[in-house]
């Protein structure tokens, strides 16, 4: 069934988009991530311009992270204090990101920036996660105990605050910086950033695993809602029809993914996710390096009269 997308200005097959939403939703439910890093490239692949894809995926991620956040809230697995400090940074970062997005679009380098950030970020995070998962897997094989967590330089920073639910005592500076970073790249790349945020919170900020996913989902939810709003106001690129189809597919797929994820062990899950992220990054890298099929591209600057 064909449906005409009003903002993307092209007809798409509803079932194809629904299936894409469900597939990405499955993956995101399984790994507890937003799945934007998969969804945005997929949309670009079916012919939607990178700009519209990035802007529309934001609202899709908002929907899936809201249903996730609700579930974690019921289980009291969200740290409200930590979430609010993260959000201060996140909102600032998102605003900066959308502004940069608009500037790059005017310069004609947006597509390149999106591709480049995908390559750099995904290959780095992917390989880190993959090697970490591999090491963890080998450790459990050998029956060794994981190394004890020690305090690092981050814990020496001033402006410390007590986060009761997470049971940590931490400076707000690194938290706000992390928020800004995630908000910024999220707005430019059309990703929630959960797959970067969770490792940072665990390894750098030492947030206990009990509250980390729920809290990161709150940040994702708010930054993505804010990104949707800003993209709609400044660039008029959010395709609500596309977003709705993706959301419906996504939230459904996520439920089944979450159930499947519970059957797999943590280390294996991280290994798989690392591999997945890495392969998306490599795909973007290949695209940048090989000679494109067509060296020319056209962009319409708007109809006059």
């Amino acid at each position: 069934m064909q449906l005409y997308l009003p903002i993307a200005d092209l007809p798409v097959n509803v079932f194809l988009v629904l299936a894409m939403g469900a597939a990405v939703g499955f993956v995101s439910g399984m790994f507890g991530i937003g799945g934007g890093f998969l969804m945005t490239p997929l949309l670009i692949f079916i012919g939607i311009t990178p700009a519209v894809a990035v802007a529309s995926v934001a609202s899709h991620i908002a929907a899936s992270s809201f249903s996730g956040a609700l579930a974690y809230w019921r289980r009291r697995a969200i740290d409200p204090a930590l979430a609010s400090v993260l959000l201060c940074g996140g909102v600032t970062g998102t605003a900066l990101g959308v502004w940069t997005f608009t500037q790059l679009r005017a310069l004609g380098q947006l597509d390149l920036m999106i591709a480049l950030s995908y390559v750099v970020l995904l290959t780095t995070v992917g390989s880190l996660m993959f090697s970490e998962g591999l090491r963890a897997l080998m450790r459990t094989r050998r029956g060794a105990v994981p190394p004890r967590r020690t305090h690092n330089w981050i814990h020496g920073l001033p402006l410390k605050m007590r986060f009761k639910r997470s049971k940590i005592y931490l400076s707000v500076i690194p938290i706000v910086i992390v928020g800004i970073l995630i908000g910024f790249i999220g707005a430019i790349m059309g990703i929630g950033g959960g797959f970067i945020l969770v490792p940072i919170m665990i390894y750098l900020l030492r947030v206990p695993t009990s509250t980390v996913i729920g809290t990161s989902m709150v940040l994702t939810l708010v930054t993505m809602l804010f990104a949707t709003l800003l993209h709609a106001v400044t660039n008029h690129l959010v395709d609500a029809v596309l977003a709705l189809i993706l959301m419906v597919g996504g939230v459904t797929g996520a439920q089944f993914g979450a159930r499947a994820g519970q059957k797999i062990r943590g280390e294996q899950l991280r290994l798989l996710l690392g591999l997945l992220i890495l392969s998306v990054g490599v795909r973007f890298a290949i695209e940048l390096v090989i000679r494109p099929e067509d060296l020319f591209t056209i962009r319409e600057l708007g109809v006059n009269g």
Partner: protein
Amino acid sequence: MRAALAVLLVLLLGSVARAERLIVSVSNHRVTVTPNYSGEELVLFGSVEKDASTPADRKTYDLVVTVMGPRADMVTRRKERTFGIWINTDYRQFLAVPSYLALFANRSFEAITSPEIARRQQIGLNNVLLTQRVSGDYADVVPNDAFRSAFIRLRTQRGLYREDPSAVTFLTSTLFRTGIPLPAEVPIGTYEVEIKLFADGAFIGKTETAFEIVKVGFEQFVATTARQNGLIYGLVTAAMALMTGWMASIVFRKD
């Protein structure tokens, strides 16, 4: 009606020297883009009316139909290899060029008229005026210019630019028809149709008609809201996201 007749009369008197008159009509003057729109084909019908001053030995005519969509500014960019990766470097801006452009004829453009007249009457994609901004100046460039030909090639690939020298068929020696294919991703707006008549290589007259392509209903509503009330549109989309997420958490609640 009377006004129309008067206009016709003036046109007739004005074109007495030309001797032929073109009467055309398109099958649909208002194409609506609905949710299940996936391309359409319009039909243009017409006839060549002779009158007393038409030379008696003039038997065959040639026709060139030009369909032009709403005009827009466009930028063509060229990628070049820089530091091992392909980056947009050079670009050229096309000013107020048709977003849709189709040229149809009953036989090849070369056979219809001389290169000189073809250029003056903008017959063929190579002769259509595509104004570029070239270092502060506004001009068209030679047909084989890299940017110009890439621009036409890309638009043709998307079905938005086309030329077909066999699309016009003469049903009788004076009655003709042609199809106007509109692709799925058709630009919205007013389309001008120009029908140019040739006989023995000479340009002997033209007429114009138009049709419009409009988004209706929901599509139109969404598109205009997004452009004019960005804030409300964004808020509604955000609310929609929250609703969907909330509904999902209720529907799939495990207990």
